[in-house]
C-alpha cells in the first residue's frame, strides 16, 4: 500500500541519484525476509489454536502442522453447551454497555477538558491516565468484597462498573485530542445560527469527532470483551460470566477427555469478531491513536 502510493516522480528521482542501496525505492529482499519471519512469529500461536480446534479425540496429542482428520466437532460441541452460549451473550452485553457508557460519559468529559477553561486541566488528564496504569489485581480483591456486600457480585452491572475504570480513561484520552482539533469557530457558527450549546455539541462537534468515537469505541469494546481477571473474580455462575471466564470452566464431554479442543474452538470463536473489526477499522484506529500528534 505505502510503496504503491509513492508518486512515480519521486521514485525516479531517487533511483537516478547516487543514493545508498538502503535508500533505493525497492524494499530489499532481506527486509521481506524479516517481515515474513515477524508475521510467522506473531500468527503462529493463533494458527496453532485454529489447528487444535479442528482436532478431536486422540488427534489432540499429535503435533502435526495440519490436523490429520479435520473436524468441526469441537465447534458443534461448544455451541451445544449452554454455558458457552450464555457466556457469549453476557460478553456481548457487558462489552456493548461498557462501550456505550464509556463513549457517552467520555465524550462529555473529553469535551469539557478540550474546551472549557478549567484549572489544573493537565493534572486532571494526567490523573485520568494514571488510573489506567493500576494493576487490575489491586482492585480485584477489594471490589470482590465490596460487590459481595452491596449485592453486585455475579451481576452484569457488577462487571460493567469496574470495566468503566479502564474504558473511560481510554475514551476520554482519545476523544480529548479529537475535540481539540475541531475548530472552535464551528461551534460558534452553530451558536450564532441558533443552536443551543448542547445542539452545537451533538450536531456539529460529535459528527466531526466520529472517527475518534469509532476508535475509542473499538478499543474499549476489545478491552472489555477480552477482560479475564475481573470477570473470573467477580462472577460465580452463568448469570454474568463472560466468555474468557467461562472458557476456564470448560470440561471435556466426558470426565476423561481433555477440553483442549473445545477451549481452542471457543477461543477462535471469540477472536474472530475482534480480528474482523480491527481489520475493517484498522485505518481509523491508527488515525485515532495519532490524532493530536500530527496535524492533518
Amino acid at each position, binding site marked *: 500500500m505505502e510503496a504503491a502510493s509513492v508518486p512515480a516522480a519521486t521514485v525516479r528521482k531517487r533511483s537516478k541519484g547516487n543514493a545508498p542501496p538502503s535508500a533505493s525505492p525497492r524494499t530489499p529482499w532481506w527486509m521481506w525476509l524479516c517481515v515474513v519471519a515477524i508475521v510467522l512469529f506473531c500468527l503462529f500461536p493463533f494458527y496453532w489454536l485454529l489447528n487444535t480446534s479442528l482436532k478431536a479425540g486422540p488427534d489432540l496429542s499429535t503435533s502435526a502442522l495440519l490436523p490429520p482428520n479435520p473436524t468441526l466437532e469441537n465447534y458443534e460441541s461448544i455451541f451445544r453447551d449452554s454455558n458457552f452460549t450464555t457466556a457469549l451473550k453476557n460478553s456481548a452485553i457487558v462489552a456493548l454497555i461498557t462501550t456505550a457508557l464509556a463513549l457517552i460519559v467520555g465524550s462529555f468529559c473529553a469535551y469539557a477538558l478540550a474546551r472549557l477553561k478549567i484549572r489544573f486541566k493537565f493534572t486532571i488528564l494526567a490523573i485520568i491516565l494514571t488510573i489506567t496504569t493500576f494493576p487490575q489485581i489491586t482492585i480485584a480483591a477489594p471490589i470482590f468484597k465490596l460487590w459481595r456486600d452491596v449485592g453486585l457480585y455475579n451481576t452484569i452491572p457488577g462487571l460493567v462498573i469496574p470495566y468503566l475504570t479502564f474504558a473511560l480513561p481510554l475514551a476520554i484520552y482519545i476523544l480529548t485530542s479529537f475535540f481539540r482539533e475541531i*475548530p472552535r*469557530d*464551528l461551534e*460558534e*457558527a*452553530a*451558536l*450564532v*445560527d*441558533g*443552536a*443551543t450549546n448542547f*445542539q452545537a455539541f451533538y*450536531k*456539529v462537534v460529535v*459528527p*466531526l469527532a466520529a472517527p475518534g468515537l469509532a476508535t475509542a469505541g473499538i478499543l474499549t469494546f476489545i478491552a472489555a470483551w477480552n477482560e479475564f481477571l475481573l470477570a473470573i473474580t467477580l462472577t460465580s455462575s452463568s448469570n454474568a460470566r463472560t466468555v474468557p471466564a467461562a472458557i476456564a470452566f470448560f470440561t471435556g464431554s466426558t470426565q476423561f477427555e481433555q477440553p483442549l479442543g473445545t477451549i481452542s474452538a471457543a477461543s477462535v470463536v471469540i477472536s474472530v469478531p475482534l480480528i474482523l473489526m480491527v481489520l475493517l477499522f484498522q485505518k481509523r484506529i491508527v488515525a485515532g491513536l495519532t490524532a493530536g500528534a500530527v496535524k492533518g
Partner: protein
Amino acid sequence: MADIELREVTKRYPDGTEAVKQVSLEIGDGEFMILVGPSGCGKSTALRMIAGLEDISDGDLLIGGERVNDLAPRDRDIAMVFQNYALYPHMTVRENMGFALKLAKENDGEIKSRVDEAAKILDLEAHLERKPANLSGGQRQRVAMGRAIVRSPKVFLMDEPLSNLDAKLRVQMRTEVSRIQQRVGTTTVYVTHDQTEAMTLGDRVAVMRGGIIQQVDSPKNLYERPRNLFVAGFIGSPSMNFLPAQLEGDTIKLPFGDAQIPDELKSRLKGNGKGGEVIAGVRPEHFEDSDVEPEKPGLRFTAPVSVVESMGSELYAYFDVESGGIESSDLTELAADSGIEDLPKHGSGEVQQVVARLAAASGARPGKQANLVLDTRFIQLFDPNGGKSLTAEQ
C-alpha cells in the same frame, strides 16, 4: 433589520486588561459599518460582543432598541461570517445554508426555497450538493455569505471575511459583498484590518486603536479630515508622510523649505495656528513633478530621488529629507503594525523617507534630482503632543 447601539461597552478580562474601552457607537438601520484597526485593537472583540460570543463586562448593547447584553447568540437574530468561514465540513452546501432554518424548525419546503433563492443570488446553484472540502476558496466564502443571508437576520456580522482569499479574488469578492449588502439592505458590521476594504465598502468607518474608537466617519472624511495622527497614518496607501514643521506667523517651515500658509489652510487652522513645533502630514498625491505641471501652485523644491516604483498609471518616487525626526506613539504603533519598525531610517532619525505620487509622465529617475511641487493647501497639521489634528474638526 435593525439599528445597533453600543453604549460605553467595555470588555475586561479577568486579569484586568481591557480589550475594548467604553466604546460608544450607533449603527443605523441598513448601514454598512466597518470596524478597522491594527491587530489587537479590539475590533474583533467588539464584533464578538455584538454576536454574543463574548460577555460584555460593562455598558449596554442594543439591537433594534432592545437591550441584548444577556441574550444568548441564538436569541439575537444575527448572522455571522467567520474569517475561516466555519462551514460545517460534514454537511453539504445546502445543509450548511439551511442549518439555521432547520434549527428554527422551518418546514422543509420553506428551507429549500430560501436556500435556492440565496444560492441564486450567490451563483452557487451548481454546488448545492457538494461538501465544503470540494469547493474553492471563493466558493466557500460565498457559502459562508449564503448561510448568513438565507436567514434574513436583523444584523450581519463579518469578521475579516475576505482575508483568506488571494489578492485578485479578494477585490472581486469585495464588490460582491457590497452588492449583496445593498441588495438585501441588512445592517452590517464588518471587521477588517485592511484599510482599502474599509474605504471601499463602508458607509461609515470606525477606526479603532487600543480598544478605543479614534474616529467614526465616512471614508472620504477619514481620508481628508483625519482627527489624529493615527487615523491619518492608518488610512491611505501609500500612507501619509509625516514631517516635522514649524509655524511662524504666516509661514510654515517644512524640511523642503518655507512656504506661506495658504488661506485655505489658515481657515482650517482657526485658532490653532499659534506657532511653534507641529507635525505636518502630507499625502503622497499632493506632490507633483513640477516639470509635468509647471503651472501648479505650491512650494517648489528639488529632491534626490532614491527609488521609483512605477504603477503604470502613476509613479511612486521615494526621496530622503534631512529632518530632526519626529517622535509619536501613534506613529510607532503604526510602524509596528505594518512591520516596518525594524527598517532603518523610517519615521525617525536624521534622514526621513518621503513618498510622492507623481504622474506617469514624470521624469523622476532613481539617483537623480527631481523638481517637485507640494500643494500646500492640503497639508494637515498635528499637535506633536498627543497627535491631535490642528486642521480637522475635533
